[in-house]
């Protein structure tokens, strides 16, 4: 296929604003969980971008809250059919890994996280393709607390450790 437009994207000098800022990143050198604490409340929304070789659910915990403080909805495709599920008063399940050939990727938005007048919504686009198996889907979690979010912890489902190489980056959006 011929290539029409070739753009040199290695140039510099683009305007960089403070509207989308990198706050912190963690890459696991050994198995464990990942916590971002003392998150400033100076942004409007947070975005989380991550990759992991986990073959299980990635679980989110806000402000150190464990147990059934979250509601959950999911829409998932497994390559042959689409399915939907929901649950209440559960853990914060946000992205389902499917194997180690390809990393599971997820992009999560934590909306209006510093607002103290409403419950918080977490929405995620995730996917894991293994060249013959895999999942792609959307989740939404409701954290049933009006507190501002100042810490986020990521686990494997049931508060287990995440694998080596898991990388999660936290960004703030003005």
């Amino acid at each position, binding site marked *: 296929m011929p290539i*029409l437009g070739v753009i040199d994207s290695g140039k510099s000098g683009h305007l*960089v604003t403070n509207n989308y800022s*990198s706050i912190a990143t963690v890459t696991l050198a050994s198995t464990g969980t990942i916590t971002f604490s003392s998150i400033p409340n100076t942004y409007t929304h947070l975005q989380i971008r991550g990759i992991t070789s986990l073959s299980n659910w990635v679980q989110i915990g806000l402000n150190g809250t464990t147990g059934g403080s979250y509601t959950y909805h999911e829409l998932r*495709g497994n390559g042959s059919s689409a399915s939907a599920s929901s649950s209440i008063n559960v853990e914060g399940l946000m992205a389902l890994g499917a194997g180690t050939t*390809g990393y599971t990727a997820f992009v999560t938005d934590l909306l209006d996280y510093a607002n103290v007048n409403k419950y918080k919504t977490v929405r995620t686009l995730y996917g*894991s393709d293994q*060249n013959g198996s895999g999942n792609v889907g959307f989740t939404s979690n409701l954290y049933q607390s009006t507190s501002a979010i100042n810490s986020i912890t990521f686990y494997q489902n049931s508060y287990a450790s995440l694998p080596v*190489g898991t990388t999660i*980056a936290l960004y703030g959006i003005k």
Partner: protein
Amino acid sequence: MAAGATYVPIATQTLGSSASSVTFNSISQGFTDLVVVSSIKPSSSASGYGPSFQINGDTGSNYSYTLIYGNGSSAGSIRASSINYARYGSGGSTSTLEADVTHIMNYSNTTTYKTILARFSQPSADTGAFVNLWRNTAAITSLTFYGNDGGSIAAGSTFTLYGISAA
């Protein structure tokens, strides 16, 4: 926590006339993730598959994807394995622009295969998401986007490439 501004526009291409493809070449390795925001319509209807892209000029059977979609009356999911392209869009209309956002995660890593998420919205046809796997550990230095069946993209389509740097 220290915060650094990021989400940098790297390059934009707007098609004044139909083009056989759109390429971002010589992509800087100075970011963590890439995001491509596109507003596109293919030049012709699909007989086989919808809008696609290739990485680093790789035309081999090193791609696979899993798709979930909804078309207004039903939802479904399909998969393709060991094919020679990745997917980013619907391609369900040649008259209405669709909005697509493609996330290329950890693109400069040289030890892992690359996972690419793509969210598409074609208001005349369907909406959904792809997860693509490119089975290659090379850093990504170029991206080439096509319309339906590897064909051309119509005038008025736009592509913008952004870079995101993690702290």
